[in-house]
């Protein structure tokens, strides 16, 4: 049992490093080709409004690595507090900020502190309000019942401890709060060779 736990912890640590490396690469070298679509091409594929993409900093758009459009059903209203779990370079958080307006609040959480710095720089460039906190999605660095709406895009699937992540989301949401998440799911159990390959898991 202890050995199994140790193995999983060790794999999780490797995975964490690979996730940071891969998405840092997307942010630093958005002109590169990855095996997933990214940047404006991906955002347009998922129906992001051209108006949003035109208003957002080019770096935030170019680094976009989502798998869908969580704004489609988020129904954000002015004044709401929004959490973008796995905010990356900040595109989804910035779009949320435009919707909740100056009376609202948008908080990004990302595993990678460098991505938080990048996202906040993008927010400053556009004069939008967004704060980013570094932390793992399994331990969201926010108090209980502090969020009206959670959005997330292609991130929860990266966790080995999805139940824990969902429990954390439940904890930080206020009663009556809602989620709008786009993510990757699998109908079949992934083979051990995929689970044990950080590069495949991280993608």
């Amino acid at each position: 049992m202890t050995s199994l736990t140790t193995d999983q912890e060790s794999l999780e640590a490797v995975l964490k490093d690979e996730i940071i490396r891969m998405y840092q690469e997307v942010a630093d070298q958005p002109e590169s080709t990855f095996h997933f679509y990214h940047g404006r091409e991906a955002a347009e594929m998922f129906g992001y409004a051209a108006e949003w993409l035109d208003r957002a900093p080019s770096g935030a758009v170019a680094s976009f690595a989502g798998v869908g459009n969580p704004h489609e059903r988020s129904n954000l209203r002015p004044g709401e507090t929004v959490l973008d779990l796995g905010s990356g370079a900040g595109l989804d958080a910035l779009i949320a900020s435009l919707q909740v307006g100056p009376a609202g609040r948008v908080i990004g959480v990302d595993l990678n502190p460098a991505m938080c710095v990048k996202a906040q720089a993008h927010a400053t460039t556009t004069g939008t309000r967004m704060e980013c906190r570094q932390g793992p999605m399994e331990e969201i660095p926010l108090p209980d019942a502090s969020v009206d709406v959670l959005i997330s895009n292609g991130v929860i699937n990266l966790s080995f401890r999805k139940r824990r992540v969902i429990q954390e989301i439940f904890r930080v949401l206020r009663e009556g709060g809602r989620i709008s998440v786009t993510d990757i799911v699998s109908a079949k159990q992934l083979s051990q060779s995929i689970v044990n390959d950080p590069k495949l898991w991280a993608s």
Partner: protein
Amino acid sequence: MFRLLEESGFTRVRSAVVPGFRFRKQSTQDAAEAYGVKAVMMTALKPRSG
């Protein structure tokens, strides 16, 4: 994830496939299809107590 949301106390859990999602690299897309991998949109509500 749908089940995890319900088990964690969320209500009105809904999901729909994200149309148009695919991997750029064909070999990755083929592997994804073999495992039934797809992108989904999920919405849910944290109920009010009482």
